[in-house]
């Protein structure tokens, strides 16, 4: 190292652009750095396509933006497991409280899973006019249920003292979105709370779900799923439960 070589600290400052190169030796190093940068390779097209495809949105459904939009959306579009919990709770209530002969009558006002849009007691949502009832069989109503797809389950953990207010707010959000509440059922597991089964028109569904999600007092890490195939009203199950 000759006496006019820059010190390591000075070299740092020059390369970071905090100080200008003033000697020939320093300018040589700056030129060398520029040559290295200029000759540096770029990623090839195939690699670029492969990597950028990783980040491309994989959820193309109307609820995809919810899942991509932050923890609330991702966290509160619930896993099939939670839907199963809610359904199981209701099933226990139905089976435990009444005989088999009552099941059909009760299922119309309980949480249930169907493969297509639910025709609520108040009729189809505004964006699915004319869907014939025969295409949307309801389990327990004397028809054969096709393979079920889970409704969107939204778990909303809230403080115990806010339970009533949050349930009322959830009802208000669903109604304001033009949705229909099909059933409201108290639950005891996994925490005490209230399960709301409802349908939402397709258009305002995402916003409404976002608002429902925002009722939660803390995030939960849950899975997501693609609701792209939904032809009619969006079925939801809102589980407002006490935060553990």
């Amino acid at each position, binding site marked *: *190292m000759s006496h006019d*070589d*820059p*010190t*390591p*600290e000075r*070299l*740092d400052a020059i*390369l*970071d652009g905090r100080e200008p190169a003033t000697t020939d030796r320093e300018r*040589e*190093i700056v030129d*060398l*750095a520029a*040559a*290295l*940068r200029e*000759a*540096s*390779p*770029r*990623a*090839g097209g*195939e*690699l*670029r396509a*492969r*990597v*950028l495809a*990783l*980040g*491309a*949105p994989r959820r193309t459904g109307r609820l995809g933006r919810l899942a*991509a939009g932050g923890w609330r959306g991702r966290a509160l579009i619930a896993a099939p497991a939670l839907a199963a919990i809610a359904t199981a709770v209701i099933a226990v209530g139905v089976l435990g409280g009444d005989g088999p002969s009552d099941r059909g009558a009760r299922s119309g006002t309980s949480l249930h899973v169907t493969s297509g849009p639910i025709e609520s007691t108040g009729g189809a949502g505004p964006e699915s006019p004319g869907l014939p009832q025969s295409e949307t069989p309801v389990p327990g109503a004397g028809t054969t249920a096709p393979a079920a797809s889970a409704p969107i389950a939204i778990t909303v953990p809230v403080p115990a003292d806010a339970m009533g207010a949050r349930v009322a707010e959830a009802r208000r959000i669903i109604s304001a979105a033009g949705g229909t509440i099909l059933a409201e059922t108290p639950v005891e597991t996994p925490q005490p709370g209230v399960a709301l089964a409802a349908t939402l028109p397709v258009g305002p569904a995402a916003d409404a779900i976002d608002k429902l999600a925002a009722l939660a007092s803390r995030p939960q890490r849950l899975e997501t799923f693609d609701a792209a195939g939904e032809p009619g009203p969006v079925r939801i199950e809102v589980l407002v439960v006490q935060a553990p």
Partner: protein
Amino acid sequence: MTVAALALRTERAEPVRPTFAEAAEAHLDAVFRYLRQLTGDAHLAEDLTSETFERALRVWDRYDPARGPVLPWLVTIGRRIALDHFRSETRRRGRERRAGAMEPASTAAPAGPAELPAELATALERLTQAEREVVALRVLLDLDGAEAASVLGISPSACSTQLHRAMTKLREELAR
């Protein structure tokens, strides 16, 4: 770190969390350049870059923009993957040598980037892997001293010394 440098770093912090797609778009070339320089092999660098972003996507939730920009985070992932690769390659070669099934693997340094002018590529080949790495981080990726030191797991002053040694060596090689 001086107060001024600390202030500079604070100003440069990225408070806004990019999406994974934005980060991939913005930093793909940088990660590839780093791994290309580190491995000296374009095909291997492509594979490792791809693996880096796949792993980054899996742990994207863990990236905290308050703790620093995303590029050093990505490069750190890439570096771990590259080092894992080197380690497994070393083990594989050891097994092959012991088995006597194949010719001993070459211990020569990986070839320099073919895209570089020949004299620059030759000069880079004469650097150690650690020197090539610090040049990649500080010069090609423009990471600041603290970020590069963090990726390398060394102190900022050690990083400065290493960079100084590497640039001096490069300049001397090119002057021959």
